[in-house]
């Protein structure tokens, strides 16, 4: 039974379909049952206080069940300058968390697939680098951090913009160059940001974001705000000189920076061992501790990030390597099968898919019914579809945005143009 709360002109809520007196309605709101369909057992099917009590008790049982701890093991982590025995081998979680992770990761997956379709339909201009396959890394970092921590990453950033607070419609809007996008449509796929939630993008030039991350770490330490900076880069970028420059700085000044190498096995079309002499990316920081994690397991990532964060705040920089995989090619211009076989891609998909892993836990531990999973998936698909439509329908940025935001408070510094 659906019902709608409508606010009357004088401010009092009226229930349109639910037969309940105002007192009972207040009871419903107090127990947080506004979204729950209630059965009325009173005369003419009205809802009585005892109905509300019964529903509240049932809800409380469900909520408590959702918080029952479950322990799940994962593949052991590898430490560099860290004792392996100090590294976690399992995570404690519960239904509530796993449902949340599944929802978010499934949204990330569907959003990237929607981006693929939009690109092929020529709605997205320019370049488009997709994250599907790597969702456990983004979700794991999100699960172990707050918006008080900073994140900066490369051009494979759509899902980070999502986990850092933007809606699917806004992310896709930025891809389409629309005004609703986080960069007003001026950044596109590779340049999405959120100042409010400490997300520094979104960077097109390989490796250039890593020194920025060190600066963010310095700012956290300077302000003493208890935050940590995560600076993410890929296996291809791992050979950039500027990374080693700032690892040195971070170590010298004990900055709370976590260098995260998202090793998806290929730098564009070059396999790791063909581009890097040393492929132990977690150990490339040499004199700073490193952790290598199974990047396809969201719980493993979460636990490793928690550990790294605690270490970074106490002792200084840490280098992490997320052992992950991308299903798409480097970008939408790369079919992704000239340097690896289709069998390899489908093999990873069937054996190690990060979203499927969470779904398996939900079923294996009998946390949700298959109907509940289906309804979660339907809701996510609907959200993504609506996001696509909203992005397509949104307006382009006005033309004068071409000359805005070059300098601080430009007035008087209008850029020259050659016009008709």
């Amino acid at each position, binding site marked *: 039974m659906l019902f709608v709360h409508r606010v009357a002109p004088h401010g009092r809520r009226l229930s349109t379909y639910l037969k309940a007196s105002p007192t009972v309605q207040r009871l419903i709101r107090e127990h947080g049952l506004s979204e729950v369909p209630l059965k009325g057992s009173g005369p003419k099917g009205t809802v009585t206080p005892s109905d509300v009590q019964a529903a509240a008790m049932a809800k409380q049982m469900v909520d408590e069940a959702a918080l029952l701890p479950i322990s799940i093991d994962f593949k052991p982590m590898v430490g560099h300058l860290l004792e392996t025995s100090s590294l976690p081998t399992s995570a404690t979680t519960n239904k509530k968390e796993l449902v949340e992770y599944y929802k978010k990761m499934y949204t990330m997956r569907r959003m990237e697939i929607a981006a693929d379709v939009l690109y092929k339909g020529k709605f997205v*201009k*320019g*370049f488009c680098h997709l994250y599907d396959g790597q969702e456990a890394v983004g979700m794991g970092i999100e699960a172990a951090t707050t918006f008080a921590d900073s994140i900066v990453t490369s051009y494979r950033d759509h899902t980070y913009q999502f986990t850092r607070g933007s809606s699917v419609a806004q992310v896709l809007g930025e891809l389409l*160059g629309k005004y609703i996008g986080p960069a007003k*449509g*001026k*950044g*596109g796929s*590779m*340049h999405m940001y959120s100042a409010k939630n400490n997300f520094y993008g979104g960077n*097109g*030039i*390989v*490796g250039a974001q890593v020194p920025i991350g060190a600066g963010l770490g310095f700012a956290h330490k300077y302000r003493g705000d208890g935050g940590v900076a995560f600076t993410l880069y890929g296996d*291809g*970028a791992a*050979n*950039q*000189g500027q990374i080693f420059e700032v690892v040195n700085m971070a170590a010298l000044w004990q900055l709370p920076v976590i260098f995260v190498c998202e090793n998806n096995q290929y*730098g*564009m*079309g*070059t396999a790791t061992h*063909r*581009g*890097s002499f040393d492929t132990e990316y977690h150990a490339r920081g040499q004199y700073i501790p490193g952790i290598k994690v199974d990047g396809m397991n969201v719980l493993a990532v979460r636990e490793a990030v928690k550990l790294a964060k605690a270490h970074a705040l106490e002792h200084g920089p840490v280098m992490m390597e997320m052992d992950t995989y991308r299903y798409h090619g480097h970008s939408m211009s790369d079919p992704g099968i000239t*340097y690896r076989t289709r069998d390899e891609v489908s093999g990873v998909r069937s054996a190690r898919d990060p979203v499927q892993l969470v779904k398996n836990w939900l079923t294996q531990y009998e946390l949700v019914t298959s109907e509940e999973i289906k309804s979660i998936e339907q809701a996510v698909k609907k959200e993504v579809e609506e996001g696509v439509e909203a992005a397509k329908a949104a307006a*382009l*940025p006005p*033309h004068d*945005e*071409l*000359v805005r935001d*070059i300098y601080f408070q430009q007035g008087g510094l209008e*850029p*020259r*143009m*050659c*016009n*008709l």
Partner: protein
Amino acid sequence: FVRHKMRAAGFLHGARRARHLCSLCHRRRFTTAVEIAGETQKMTMVAAINDALRVALRTDPAAVVFGEDVAFGGVFRASMNLVEEFGPERVLNMPINEQGLVGFGIGMAAVGGTAIAEVQFADYIFPAMDQICNEAAKFRYRSGNEFDVGGLTIRAPASAVGHGGHYHSQSPEAYFAHTPGLKVVYPRDAYTAKGLLLASIRDKNPVIFFEPKILYRASVGQVPVGDYELPLGKADILTAGKDITCVAWGAQVHVMTKACARAEADGISCEAIDLATIAPWDMHTIRTSVKKTGRLLVTHEAPLTGGFAGEIAATIQDECFDYLEAPIARVTGADTPFPLAFEKLYLPDELKVYDAIVRTANY
């Protein structure tokens, strides 16, 4: 004096022996050695560049081609089938390290190698600027000619491509033209790409060779299959005219010629010139042309402030002041970072160039 006259697409440039002195100003002209070697074949610009690399590797045992994904054939397929013919010691994949690979090339060239480097997009050349501007450009000068890196050539796909955005569309020629010791070259089509690239590789100075990537497949022409060079430092007069001199380079040449065609329909006779080499630029040809027409327009994609059109305008107003009938017009990209969504507003398109031609001609 018209060096090359393009009548239609696919027209073959004839081999001409230059006379020693210019008939207009009696200054010494550049001599050219344009020998069309044998038959020609229809080629796209990227195929012509591929062919130039092949010729260079065949004729020079010290030549090595390297860059990101170069041995795979390159992201634009400019280095296809080279590693199969010349082996992995001569066609190398580089990790993502622009500064490193250019420095590596400088080292090779310093001991006499012919280092043909590729920077995957001209937008990525900036990490290597120290190596290019501080090391390569000054190598000969600072050692009093003990050493040089004349064997270094850096190729980079450049300029707008329709959807490139901030980091796949830039034209950075002005930054490098500003550094003495470097040469900067910008071909306009398949034929000039192969000839100029071979000349750049063989030139005994470090050369930066920008390739207009939007023309990689779009520019198709008859290109000699053999070995030939086109002279560096020589501008090409594409059509003779008497009312206004129009100068451009790279892909913008085609925008300019279309605008000139529109102006011709209005009765304005345009002399369209492809500068081809940005540094050192052919002052003689431009000067001679402006002395004839009295009006000059320069157009490029790069932003207005500090763009290379400023250098041309300043030189010409200095040397041809009495001949000028109108202010020199510059039609360029806007002074903004190269935009993603607003590319059409930003670029100096055909209408903007045509409008400036008309205003300058009617001044």
